[in-house]
């Protein structure tokens, strides 16, 4: 099983995501206080507008381990992935 975003891929992300609504299945870049700069898929957005993310692979950090992120921690939304091959 290969990850959806293979190693050494480039991603094109937009910063103006704040004008768009973050929805489940969006791929976003987050600056996590514990894990650093991560690329994650939105699992769900709770009623407090906190974003809960899941990994790109079953072995990734689970949504409950990662915890919620707020809009200030979200750097951008990925709109295009450029894979090596």
């Amino acid at each position, binding site marked *: 099983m290969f990850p959806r975003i293979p190693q050494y891929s480039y991603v094109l992300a937009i910063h103006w995501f704040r004008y768009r609504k973050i929805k489940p299945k969006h791929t976003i870049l987050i600056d996590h206080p514990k894990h650093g*700069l991560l690329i994650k898929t939105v699992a769900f957005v709770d009623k407090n507008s906190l974003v809960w993310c899941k990994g790109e692979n079953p072995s990734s950090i689970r949504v409950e381990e990662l915890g919620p992120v707020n809009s200030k921690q979200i750097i951008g939304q990925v709109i295009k992935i450029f*894979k090596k091959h």
Partner: protein
Amino acid sequence: MLYELIKKLDNKMHFSTVSAHCDIPCKIYDPITAQIATLTMIRMVDLLVELQNKAKLTTEEQAQFTRLVAQKEHHGIKVKEEITVIWGDFIKEPQLIKFPELHSLVHSIMLEASKAKQHINKEIALSLLSKVNRFAEIFWHCKDIETYSAQCPYPPEQSLIYPFLNQ
């Protein structure tokens, strides 16, 4: 082509790097978890066969039967998961060039693990172990670590490939 263009830009502009797949990445890979999970499957088969040979099972034994089947299932999934993580995360082009059998070996492990889950059959479980052992052998050789085969000192007392670490 577009990728190469972005790469050239990256060399000049140094884009930020994000962790995508393994999150950390921790670089901790070891096929021993898959090997031990396979041994567990073999052990479960042995214990299930013991029960299978009884004419009638007590309630206790029926409960034990269910637990053994559940553990065999669980460890079958574990074998698949552990092998796919190493295959997807650790194995890259240089290893594939060195060991072209890797893709077909991993695929055959997936099939054999499913078969071992579906049946109470020691032959199938042993065949799975031989494939997982081969995968372990390749894994350690990829890291330039010699391996040796030895019988594990606990049931089901089968041969395992171990890394020779005191070099």
